[in-house]
């Protein structure tokens, strides 16, 4: 418990160092573009694949489960849309990114710590936490919502593909279903979650990497811990935000 409180304290102190004006605006913008590329474009492939299949699976499962005359066929489209927008895209994609981006950030910063590159920055008078971490946090908070929006479209498209190719639902019914009772607030809720998750993933993993002590073994451990802890935080905050925004 005491260890947890100490860690939490260190986390907030680090955030205090991170959220300062960058020493050099131009360098910050360069880093930001670089990180957007690394976090965003590099993850696009996996997001595309996962989203299409996710939508497809939800569609097929729903179609099989509503094999009852009481439910209209178009509810497949409706269910896919709702689950993809509300839950699958923001949460699953964030969990995937926690694995992919979180481990990269923790090992990159951790390696810089154990090879004294962070000390070298500090010596030069650079705010190392700000220089290394802020671009990653901002980049993820900007690019993850975009990834999630792409994922939403592809998830719904995946549902359509699965429905029509298996012949379980007719195209027109599916399309009717996905347009039924659409609420923009759901998308807003999903994007708020995504931005919060992006913040949690990048800050937690940076924190784990920044305070690594030892050598490459510890860097590996820190990167695993970064993924586990960001995933747990995502699930926890998913509950909190859902309670706050939907209830």
């Amino acid at each position, binding site marked *: 418990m005491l260890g947890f409180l100490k860690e939490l304290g260190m986390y907030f102190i680090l955030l205090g160092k991170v959220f300062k004006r960058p*020493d*050099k605006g131009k*360098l910050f913008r360069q880093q930001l573009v670089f990180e957007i590329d690394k976090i965003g474009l590099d993850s696009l492939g996996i997001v595309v694949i996962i989203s299409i299949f996710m939508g497809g699976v939800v569609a097929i499962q729903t179609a099989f489960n509503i094999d009852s005359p009481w439910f209209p066929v178009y509810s497949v489209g409706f269910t896919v849309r709702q689950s993809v927008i509300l839950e699958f895209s923001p949460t699953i994609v964030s969990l995937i990114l926690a694995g992919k981006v979180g481990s990269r950030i923790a090992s990159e910063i951790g*390696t*810089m710590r154990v*090879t*004294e*590159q962070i*000390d*070298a920055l*500090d*010596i*030069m*008078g*650079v705010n190392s936490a700000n220089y290394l971490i802020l671009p990653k946090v901002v980049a993820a908070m900007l690019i993850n919502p975009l990834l999630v929006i792409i994922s939403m479209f592809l998830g719904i498209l995946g549902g359509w593909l699965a429905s029509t190719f298996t012949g379980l639902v007719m195209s027109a019914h599916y399309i009717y279903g996905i347009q039924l009772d659409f609420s923009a607030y759901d998308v807003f809720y999903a994007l708020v979650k995504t931005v919060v998750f992006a913040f949690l993933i990048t800050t937690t993993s940076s924190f784990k990497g920044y305070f690594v002590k030892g050598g490459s073994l510890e860097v590996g451990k820190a990167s695993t811990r970064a993924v586990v802890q960001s995933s747990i935080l995502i699930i926890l905050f998913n509950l909190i935000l859902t309670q706050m925004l939907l209830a």
Partner: protein
Amino acid sequence: MIEVKNIHKSFGSNHVLKDVSASFEQGKVNMIIGQSGSGKTVLIKCIVGLHEVDSGHIVFDDRDFTSMDYKQRKNVRKEIGMLFQGAALFDSLNVEENVMFPLNMFSDMPREAKIDRVNFCLDKVNLENVNKLFPSELSGGMKKRVAIARAIALNPKYLLCDEPNSGLDPRTSILIDNLISEITKEFNITTVINTHDMNSVVEVGDKIAFIFRGQLWWEGNHLEILNTDNKEVNDFVYATELMKKIKK
């Protein structure tokens, strides 16, 4: 000149530095020597503020570093170049970008001027045609030289080196030592080198501080150290057969 006044530093119950006072002079290669684990790295990291001292003062040319806030320290740090034991080059940047990094961060020079400065610094450390290579493509000695080039990019007043020649062969070691010594004299820098390599001490040490069990045990120059009757210093200096033979 850098002055260290009565500093103490502990990690938990491990009292590493016990009341160390020393002064490091401008235009000279000041050496800190001592056994492994005696606290040399801790001392050098205290000097630059990577470790906070428990008590005592670090003074850079009459400016008390220990009592400064973050902003004031930052201004002093721009005058410090440091060479780390493992070179600590930025992996994601090539040689040119590494050396240019402090210039990008703290100067408003136009790009051409920066490139000129980078080439000047790389030339100083006898490196040519490596501008576009990445740290992973360099040998240990080359990395050290790039790190020196990066450390002198902003014309530092103080240069601190933690074991500049660990892991290098004797010839390359001497090369690096002489390089640091030349740069020190040419630009009148206050240089502090942390080493346990007796070769470097004899070769380039203008002023030597011997640390023993966390205390400043002995001070002198490179001639005096060979002839002192201080037992601990002698044990350290004449630890190898080679040095014993030389003494005879």
